């Protein structure tokens, strides 16, 4: 398990983290994004999608709960579980079916799904600071280490 901490001065820097991470994502991976409202979770996901050559609007799934994207032979699902009342709703709504071997799942507000959520490969935390955002990236599986490496080498000052 490795952790990387980055200081991100603006939204463009947050998007760049997602963009850097994108090529290292492989089907079946689960990525969680934690952080307060306005911390940049959806902005980071936009970076991932841009890194995967998906253009067009990237909407926050707060209202729809999930925004699906098709990338040639694989799927990317962008979830937002903020509105889940109880973690049981996660199971009842059929979200488990999205977590397949051919799908990458990016999840905002993972804590709302509680113990139901499949284990994460990569944890991304965003924290609001006086100078911008602090981004903490933790790799929890062997395949997630490549993401960490990709993000570390994107040129943003790591410490």
């Amino acid at each position, binding site marked *: 398990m490795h952790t990387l901490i980055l200081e991100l001065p603006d939204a463009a820097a947050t998007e760049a983290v997602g963009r850097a991470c994108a090529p290292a994502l492989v089907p079946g991976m689960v990525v969680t994004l934690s952080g307060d409202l*306005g911390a940049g979770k959806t902005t980071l996901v936009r970076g991932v999608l841009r890194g995967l050559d998906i253009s067009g609007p990237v909407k926050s799934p707060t209202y729809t709960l999930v925004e699906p*994207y098709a990338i040639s032979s694989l799927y990317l699902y962008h979830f937002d579980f903020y509105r889940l009342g109880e973690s049981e709703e996660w199971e*009842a709504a059929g979200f488990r079916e999205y977590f397949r071997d051919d799908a990458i799942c990016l999840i905002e507000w993972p804590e709302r799904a509680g113990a139901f959520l499949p284990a994460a490969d990569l944890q991304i935390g965003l924290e609001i600071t006086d100078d911008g955002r602090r981004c903490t990236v933790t790799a929890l599986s062997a395949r997630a280490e490549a993401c960490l490496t990709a993000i570390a080498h994107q040129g943003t000052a790591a410490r």
Partner: protein
Amino acid sequence: MTVKHGRVDLTRGRGAGARPYNRPMLVLGIESSCDETGVALYEGGAGGGRLLAHALHSQVAMHAAYGGVVPELASRDHIRRVLPLTRHVLTASAKALADLDGVAYTQGPGLAGALLVGASVANGLAYALGIPAVGIHHLEGHLLSPLLAEPAPRFPFVALLVSGGHTQLLAVEGVGRYQLLGESLDDAAGEAFDKTAMLLGLPYPGGAELSRLAETGDPLRFRLPRPMLGSGDLDFSFSGLKTAVLTLVRKHARAGEAVPPELRADIARAFQEAVVDVLAAKSLAALTISGRRRLVVAGGVGANKQLRERLRAECARRGVELFFPPLELCTDNGAMIALAGALRMGAGTRDYAFSIRPRWPLGELLTPR
């Protein structure tokens, strides 16, 4: 559960390209794309159309002015509700299943599991009755729902669709003839209201409460950016306002403490001024660009007082007709799906295909100018 009855004259609203009806057509509409199950019965005829009954299962629909409803997501819940609601609208309008000429259902976009419930019931019914099942784009339902209002706008018009889930400007030329003029590239306007309310410490969804607070706020104390006001297109972006509001809160409130009421009201006001400025400016630009003289504002944010006052003043000055359909028609409901189904069938659509489209760009329905 709410049940509504009403009359609409569709001859005034029908597009030039639509074929006149040969006889009254009874269409059942089923909406199950997200949190709410809606079922309605609509009768379309040569002399116009009329909503016979519509029923909605949602405990929160009346409170959630911005569409940010508490989810009851289980597809199982839709399954439990859809048949009783169907029986209810049939009984309420003294009709039987055998009277139906078609079943319309929301085909997408939405949650796959939830969509499947409506699609399965609609297609099962239609197959058993030997009548068409028509898949409807959820947003087409919203676009056409103003035709259920009294007075109904005539085609063509520009629609500003602003809710918790959508922020779009569309040119509506007639049934099936829509052109996307602009949309939000990130958060929907209603979502921005709800999220800003949260940043100020109001419980989610607090968009409506935020608007009330804004009325008491000082419009001159703070000025927030007007995102994309000068972008030269009709697109919106509201996500960045969250950071702008956060910055104000961090600067003026003590960390870890509740935002004081006066500050809260002033920030709410500054936020609302920014959103209203952008929505109004782009709506007016959309009218100019499309050369249209009618504006329809649909969606929960259309209830916002300041937006209404601004648009009323600006449209009056320009001689533009302005329509605000009742809020109950703006939330997700079965009536708009039944209406869209009847209009589509009237225009010749016959679709027996059983499918759902969880991600369905409206662009595929749009006609290039």
